[in-house]
């Protein structure tokens, strides 16, 4: 891995090189992924039976300590070819090849991209610690954290107790590796986009080595039911909470495992760049773009404009024109992010999360539609109340329209539902993929209302 010299912003390295001895002693160097390093240190330094708040406080100190060594290039600057040692005189304990404790492992997967910082300073805190019984030191006392946790203190308070009131916790620190950092919003059934397409590709590659993970049939960037099944199998095998949602921990676990299942052949020749992936999604949408996905983006922009009272409300035209750019700028101003009028991953992530959070507070006159689009794509294989609702509507529409096939109410988005949605799209919208996004949702609901409110 290239060594990045004093970057402006601290980062989480993909790997860390540990010297198994004192700095001047000749000894083996071991390179491991950063989360695996922290799991090893925490399993070597702590007892896994300690209260969770104590474990978390200690792990944050261990992460900050290691990141401080990397950020300041403590050993590299002295001409050594490693980042840290495993000597407890100088650094923290690391025992090559040892077992990890599962509870510690789960905490690390969740928080390895967080660290402690002194307010007003940038570098990860040099979070010194010792056991507090055999050895006394300035800094955190490991046994003391157990005491504080038993008194009901949370990890942040425990850290403040030892390192001072003026510390902050920095979260979601970028991971400096050949993969993207977490997109800041969880990927779950019905979400879509470039990140989903990449994750699907990676899960399918992992499934080649781990056949218990079912293959995802369409790597199309839509988080489908079979994507969820693959995520659940992955979580089961790799000891994560099995919820079928790609949060921070699952995201990075997939990335690290994907990197480790790739053989050398793939690293040098077959390695697939994300931009080569077939996906209907661009990484950014901007003025001049057009098509069905721009309509989708415009739907979100309009909905949020209504919510924030931004005027004028844009029309959903499928063409990304100057009005759309202007509306995006206004939303970006509200989010406090650069106002470039371009819908990039960050802007999209904020809009998407914002919509999900405020879907019930969008003014009724925004679309003149009720119920409003729930905020996720409804797609084959899904089954929930909204699928049932749409099936009810389609049934009613089919009664009045011979072009729409009648369907049975199953509560699951099955083949007959997809067929009816495609027929509806063909008849009432220009194009359709048998997927219910906001445009199709609005059209179905509007048609249903027309039929049921007719005299």
């Amino acid at each position, binding site marked *: 891995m290239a060594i990045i010299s004093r970057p402006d912003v601290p980062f989480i390295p993909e790997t860390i090189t540990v010297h198994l001895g004192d700095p001047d002693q000749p000894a083996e160097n071991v390179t491991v992924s950063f989360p695996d390093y922290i799991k090893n240190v925490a399993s070597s330094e702590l007892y896994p*039976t*300690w209260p969770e708040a104590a474990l978390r406080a200690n792990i944050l100190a261990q992460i900050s300590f290691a990141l401080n060594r990397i950020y300041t290039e403590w050993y590299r600057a002295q001409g050594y070819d490693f980042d840290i040692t495993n000597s407890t005189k100088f650094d923290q304990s690391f025992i090559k090849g040892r*077992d990890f404790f*599962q509870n510690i492992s789960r905490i690390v997967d969740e928080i390895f991209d967080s660290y402690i910082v002194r307010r007003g300073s940038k570098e990860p805190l040099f979070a010194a610690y010792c056991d507090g019984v055999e050895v006394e030191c300035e800094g955190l006392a490991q046994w003391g954290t157990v005491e504080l946790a038993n008194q009901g203190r949370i990890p942040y308070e425990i850290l403040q107790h030892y390192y001072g009131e003026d510390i902050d916790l920095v979260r979601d620190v970028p991971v400096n590796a050949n993969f993207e950092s977490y997109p800041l919003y969880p990927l779950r059934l019905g979400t879509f986009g470039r990140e989903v397409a990449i994750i699907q590709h990676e899960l399918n590659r992992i499934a080649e080595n781990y056949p218990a993970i079912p293959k995802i049939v369409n790597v199309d960037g839509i988080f489908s039911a079979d994507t969820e099944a693959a995520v659940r199998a992955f979580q089961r095998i790799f000891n994560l909470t099995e919820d079928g949602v790609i949060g921070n921990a699952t995201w990075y676990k997939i990335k690290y*495992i994907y990197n480790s*299942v790739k053989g050398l052949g793939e690293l040098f020749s077959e390695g697939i760049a994300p931009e080569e992936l077939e996906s209907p999604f661009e990484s950014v949408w901007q003025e001049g773009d057009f098509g069905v996905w721009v309509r989708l983006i415009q739907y979100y922009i309009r909905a949020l404009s209504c919510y924030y009272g931004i005027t004028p409300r844009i029309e959903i035209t499928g063409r990304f024109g100057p009005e759309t750019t202007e509306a995006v700028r206004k939303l970006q101003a509200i989010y406090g992010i650069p106002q470039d009028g371009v819908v990039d991953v960050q802007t999209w992530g904020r809009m998407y999360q914002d919509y999900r959070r405020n879907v019930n507070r969008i003014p009724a006159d925004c679309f003149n539609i009720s119920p409003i689009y729930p905020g996720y794509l409804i797609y084959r294989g899904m089954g929930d109340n909204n699928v049932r609702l749409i099936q009810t509507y389609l049934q009613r529409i089919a009664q009045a329209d011979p072009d729409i096939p009648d369907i049975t109410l199953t509560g699951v988005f099955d083949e007959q539902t997809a067929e009816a949605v495609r027929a509806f799209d063909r008849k009432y919208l220009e194009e359709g993929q048998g997927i219910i996004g906001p445009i199709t949702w609005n059209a179905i609901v509007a048609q249903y209302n027309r039929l049921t409110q007719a005299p």
Partner: protein
Amino acid sequence: MIDHQPDQRPAVTKAQNGPEISEYFNTFMSANPSTGTIVFEVHQDSPVRGRIPVPNALVTISRPLGGNYFISKVVITDENGETEPVELPTVSRERSLRPGEGRASTTYRASVEAPGYRRQDIYDIEIFDGITSVQHVDLQLNAGTRGNG
């Protein structure tokens, strides 16, 4: 009579001479009244195929009881290279919650064998009361073995 099903309780191997096995066993069990769990994840880093799980690897977990008696248990990895969770006797959790209570965990050793791979021995696997430990094992191909990985 012939029954090689892995026993749910730790098996005890008989040595030739010395004190009664039950003495060693009872001493060990009274010092280790609690239970912890271990899972093994066995894989190989293949230069061509990347990290691949090793199924059907034989994992023998053991600990000497004294007098050449051993407590041991044998498990086999599944298609993901994982063993079932194995429960093992260990010291009480109380010992790890306050300083100065002596040994806070009980350690075991394991040997991992699979056809085509070099046997690997692992020492000092720490088992804590009520905690699941995960031991990764990275097997190396046997020198001279062809056509594997």
